[in-house]
């Protein structure tokens, strides 16, 4: 696609597909902002132990006397609770940053595993065709006809709580999106001449699949992948909110929000409010990036 465009328009500056992609992405300031915010969030999560004033998982550091303090109060440990504390005296700011860690890990991890499984199956379906294709696609249809929240709920009802089970549930819920996307693109791509050429050279199947076919299916896969990370994070939060997700000892953002539910009715809004804002910013920034990626990578919208 991009090769043809470059050949047709000899640029004075060397225009690689990547540079072209970057400059098109940067056309939207909002998307660029989203990217910056997301990078900051990711950095916060990675360096959490060096940033937060408190380790929210270390019960020895928590002071129950500081429970449910308003934002801005100075606690017994000598530092200010900028975002208040929850019922156990946990500093909300620390809790949120650590919660981000769990949410991001679970979200990105499950999206990555789902992507590996889904993309491989999608490629296989498109390349093998016939019965393999119809079996895989039936599975995809079955999975997609079932709403994600429900499928995830059921899997967790079967397996029980825990971070690993949440990841398994998310992977099982999401692989089908990748499979469908990759198959759709691969079906078109595999009829192109370069695949025929590769096959004529008698290259081994795996090489044709992964070196020739897969790279050309990447654009839609990247878009779906970005959106799915955001969805995975939201879904994990929802599951945790319903009490079926991560354990109470290491709360993710969703569980932090759930903890604040009962206090909200008595006006102690901050226990639910701030983790929600953090969740919101994370998801919005990822979606903004994904949205622009979709516009840039969709050849049908090219002027």
């Amino acid at each position: 696609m991009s090769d043809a465009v470059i050949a047709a328009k000899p640029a004075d500056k060397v225009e690689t597909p990547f540079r072209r992609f970057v400059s098109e992405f940067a056309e939207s300031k909002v998307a660029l902002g989203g990217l910056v915010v997301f990078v900051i969030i990711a950095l916060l999560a990675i360096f959490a132990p060096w940033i937060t004033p408190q380790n929210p998982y270390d019960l020895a550091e928590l002071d129950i006397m500081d429970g449910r303090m308003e934002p801005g109060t100075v606690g017994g440990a000598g530092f200010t609770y900028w975002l208040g504390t929850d019922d156990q005296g946990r500093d909300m700011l620390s809790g949120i940053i650590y919660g981000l860690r769990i949410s991001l890990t679970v979200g990105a991890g499950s999206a990555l595993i789902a992507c590996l499984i889904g993309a491989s199956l999608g490629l296989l379906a498109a390349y093998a065709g016939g019965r393999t294709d119809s079996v895989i696609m039936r599975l995809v249809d079955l999975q997609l006809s079932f709403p994600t929240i429900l499928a995830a709920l059921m899997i967790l009802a079967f397996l029980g709580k825990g971070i690993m089970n949440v990841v398994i549930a998310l992977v099982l819920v999401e692989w089908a999106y990748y499979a469908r996307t990759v198959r759709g693109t691969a079906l078109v791509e595999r009829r192109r001449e370069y695949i025929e050429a590769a096959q004529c050279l008698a290259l081994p199947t795996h090489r044709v699949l992964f070196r020739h076919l897969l790279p050309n299916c990447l654009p839609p896969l990247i878009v779906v992948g970005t959106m799915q990370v955001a969805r995975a994070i939201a879904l994990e939060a929802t599951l945790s909110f319903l009490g079926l997700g991560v354990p109470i000892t290491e709360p993710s953002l969703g569980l932090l929000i759930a903890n604040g539910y009962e206090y909200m009715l008595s006006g102690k809004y901050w226990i639910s409010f701030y983790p929600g804002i953090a969740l919101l910013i994370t998801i919005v920034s990822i979606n903004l990036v994904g949205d622009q990626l979709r516009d840039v990578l969709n050849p049908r919208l090219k002027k």
Partner: protein
Amino acid sequence: MTVYLVRRILQALLVVLAMSLIVFIGVYAIGDPVEILISPDADQIERERAVQALGLDLPLWQQYAVFLTKALQGDLGRSFVYNEPALKLILQRMPATMELAFGATILALIIGLPLGLYAGLRPDGRFSRMIMAGSILGFSLPTFWVGLMLIMVFAVYLGWLPSTGRGETGTLLGMQWSFLTWDGLRHMAMPAINLSLFKISLVIRLTRAGVRETMLMDYVKFARAKGLSPARVTFVHVFKNILIPVVTVVGLELGSTIAFSVVTESVFAWPGMGKLIIDSINVLDRPVIVAYLMLIVLMFIAINLIVDLTYSMLDPRVRLESKGT
């Protein structure tokens, strides 16, 4: 068309059967309902009697066979907790969920279609950008958190709307409906808005994307070149074509709205099927979980079928294709 219909229905039945097996095994193969349902003080004989009464002493495949035969007779087991037929329990709560889902869908269409059309026709306008930013927000906001915030603002601080429950209900066709009374509507407002936010964004985006792609099509250019009025081009040539994906998705979404009402119902303590299923999962009330799932699967397959048929009516190409195969 008839062959197509028969084949689709057979396919659907097969899916129902497969799902029943998956659900049954998934739900019955884990945990031990005896531990949960029978009081720890019960002696051995009481235990055994209870196990027998619940049919939990049979091998798994026999339990499944019994389950399947009974399911065909409309009996999906008795709830361990309420000691009532599981199906009846769910059907009792169905109207509450249904009115919530339909309310949300109607809201989504009324708000989403015009906004999406506008944003698609003027993709660079300021108002369009605002709409799109709003739709990203609607996609990104986790439903449960929005629900909490709605409660915080409208119930706790402003005190305008009640935060939980269904309120007063009116009777129609022998069922209780909240939308028939003013008090019920007030109770329904927040949950319905909460449930519809995601769908509004979806409809806006689908409509906008559809309009943008359709506007580039040759037949639209031709219609313009013919000198048709912009209104005619927009509403006849463009709008009709984008209705296809929108109808499909909204139809399919009805099922997932019903499923997603699990979250909304939990937040607003709305006594529908979703609330029931969460409670049932927490106490491992298996017959209710199984019955709920089977019902939802049936509903989904029915919705899929209806959408497919509507689709083939709206788009002749689909009809021709299905005749060919």
